[in-house]
């Protein structure tokens, strides 16, 4: 049932309290939990991380808002902590990275299908195929470095297949910037979608930048460097979808609305008995934030928030496998490339495209994403299952290159 966004008041800010023990809750079980619970934890950590990021940026240029931004930001900080601390310690950084890519595929697929604007929907499909490829590369790394099967975490919801090759995703910055929606004309859901996916991608970028150097294997370090770079491109791409002419308070209000929408979606879908109340509690917290910021917006900007906020929340995100949709997009749109803000077939990319020169330079000493998955295809229980059935000598690298 959709939630009445402008009527629900939620929890007042002064009643949003925590203890240190609450911030470090018992983590979920990485093996027993449904993969979409992990997806939601990763997504909402990203959403809260973006709330804090936005708040700091806003405080740098809005003297009058500094105290109220600080007040709300403290709660967002603790919301993020509680959510992020749900990850268990036995879930390795690489395993969590697999979860990040599952978020980027399944949540973006949901957004792409509900997005009312055709151009924006195409941008989401475009980015989704790139994250789809990242999942394939990380799964190969997980198999070849640790001898483990990524599907044990993905739980067969998401295909492990090559998408648009990561090595082909490197673009000049000018080809990562997209057309923004028009703040006066865009559907409210378009605004929420852009903020949501930007938040998720930004956290992915930050996560890879943090964990990349924790690996000893040089190929893993290179791969994280390469994919973190694409995630940075994605932040540029999705970030550029929001209208830069929105005022700070308008953006803030939209961000709070997006957080309400995301928590509402999580609360509706959650099956984990301990996590569902967390989403419900934070939904109420976010409604409290929304109404506080709405009052600020209406007092300072002298505009009615109902101009751009919907009365009721849109249909929640579909936390489910979008296998058929993803395969369809894979078949039809794999060869799309970006030229400026447009997405065109790769045959139409001018030879002098700045992305060609950039990509050639970055890949000139070899491509980690190609190396890690050389000859690799997903097999239940890792590619070693095949090697065990048909034993063969493990050759040297030189022999491998000759074969």
């Amino acid at each position, binding site marked *: 049932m959709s939630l009445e966004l402008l009527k629900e008041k939620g929890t007042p800010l002064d009643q949003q309290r925590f203890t240190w023990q609450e911030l470090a809750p*018992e983590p979920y*079980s*990485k*093996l*027993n939990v449904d993969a979409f619970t992990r997806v939601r934890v990763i997504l909402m950590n990203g959403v809260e991380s973006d709330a804090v990021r936005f708040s700091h940026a806003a405080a740098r240029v809005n003297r009058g808002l500094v105290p109220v931004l600080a007040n709300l930001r403290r709660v967002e900080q603790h919301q993020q902590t509680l959510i992020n601390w749900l990850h*268990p*310690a*036995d879930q*390795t950084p690489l395993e969590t990275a697999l979860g990040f890519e599952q978020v980027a595929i399944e949540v973006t697929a949901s957004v792409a299908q509900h997005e009312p604007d055709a151009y924006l929907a195409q941008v989401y499909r475009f980015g989704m195929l790139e994250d789809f490829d990242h999942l394939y590369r990380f799964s190969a790394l997980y198999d*070849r*470095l*640790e*001898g*483990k*099967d990524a*599907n*044990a975490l993905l739980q067969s919801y998401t295909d492990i297949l090559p998408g648009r090759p990561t090595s082909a995703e490197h673009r000049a910055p000018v080809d990562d910037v997209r057309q923004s929606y028009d703040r006066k004309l865009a559907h409210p859901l378009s605004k929420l979608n852009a903020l949501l996916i930007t938040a998720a991608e930004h956290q992915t970028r930050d996560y890879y930048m943090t964990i990349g150097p924790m*690996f*000893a*294997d*040089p190929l*893993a370090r290179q791969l994280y460097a390469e994919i973190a770079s694409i995630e940075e491109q994605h932040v540029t791409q999705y970030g550029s979808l929001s209208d830069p002419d929105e005022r700070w308070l308008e953006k803030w209000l939209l961000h709070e609305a997006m957080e309400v929408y995301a928590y509402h979606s999580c609360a509706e879908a959650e099956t984990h008995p301990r996590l569902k109340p967390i989403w419900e509690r934070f939904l109420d917290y976010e409604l409290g934030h929304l109404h506080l910021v709405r009052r600020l917006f209406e007092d300072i900007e002298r505009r009615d928030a109902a101009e751009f906020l919907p009365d009721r929340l849109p249909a929640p995100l579909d936390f489910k496998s979008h296998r058929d949709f993803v395969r369809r997009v894979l078949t039809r749109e794999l060869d799309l490339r970006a030229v400026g803000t447009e997405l065109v077939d790769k045959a139409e990319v001018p030879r002098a495209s700045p992305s060609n020169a950039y990509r050639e330079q970055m890949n000139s000493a070899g491509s980690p994403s190609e190396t890690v998955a050389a000859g690799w295809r997903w097999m*239940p*229980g*890792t590619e*070693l*299952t095949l*090697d*065990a*059935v048909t*034993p063969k*000598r*493990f050759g*040297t*690298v030189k022999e491998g290159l000759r074969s």
Partner: protein
Amino acid sequence: MKESTTPGANRSGMAVSPLMAREMLEVTNLTTPSARGTAADALAPRIEYARRAGPAATVPPPASLKELAKTALKALRGHKATVLADKLGERLAFERSGARLYEGILAKLDVHGTWRGGPSRAQLERIHADELKHFLMLHQTIQEMGSDPTAVTPSANVAATASAGLLTVISDPRTNLRESLEAIAIAELVDNDCWERLAALARASGMKELAARFDGALQDEQQHLTWVRRWLAAALASAVGVTASAEEKVRTQLASGSRAAPRRSPIARPRGGGVKRVARPVASAKVRRKKPARRR
């Protein structure tokens, strides 16, 4: 290539900066802890959380009870079956990841070469093949049990968490073959113990055929451990200029509690000048060593 045992600019010890170290020592007198208590207090949250916490994971249900009824494992029912499934899953994951660890060791051999008494490529390839053979045998056994060989069992997860550091050592390009073998020695010790327990569990449950399969794997693992120990003994002995056999003799004496063992160092140079020199490890060829002082 520079060796990790070559003296260099390691700054972790206080002796590197004696003046500041003296000032740091004042800290022990300057400190008044903000809360009373001991290290035991820091364990209190762990105890509190542990009382509330459920298991980190549980064993997946058998995929097919019909399959179980068809096999030699039909004697197993209920809890016994899940205990075995958990431990089989652990070994399967360990052997499979072990194959990847040995691929890392092979890469180290290709870069650094070996030493006299060190591993040959053929030996390492044999171990790698054994790990895969054991993985396949376990895969089949788990299927015969009606369980799912793709599932990660709780014990498999604990073993993976415990051995994560081994992968870090072996996949680090800055560690050499000897250091990587030090890590693999931990894996082989665990492997030997676990196969032994698994075979005993199968035997105690009346599953002779299964116990025989596990005994076969145990024999392979015993061979691996013997080799790894010898390689490491040879590497260390070579680095300090004693024969591998002398070092091994001392280690054996120590293990048996013999009084003949020297008190200070298990790798002390034996009496007499008739020591046969062994080749240095390839990677340490440039390291100059002092001649050991002749004993009076």
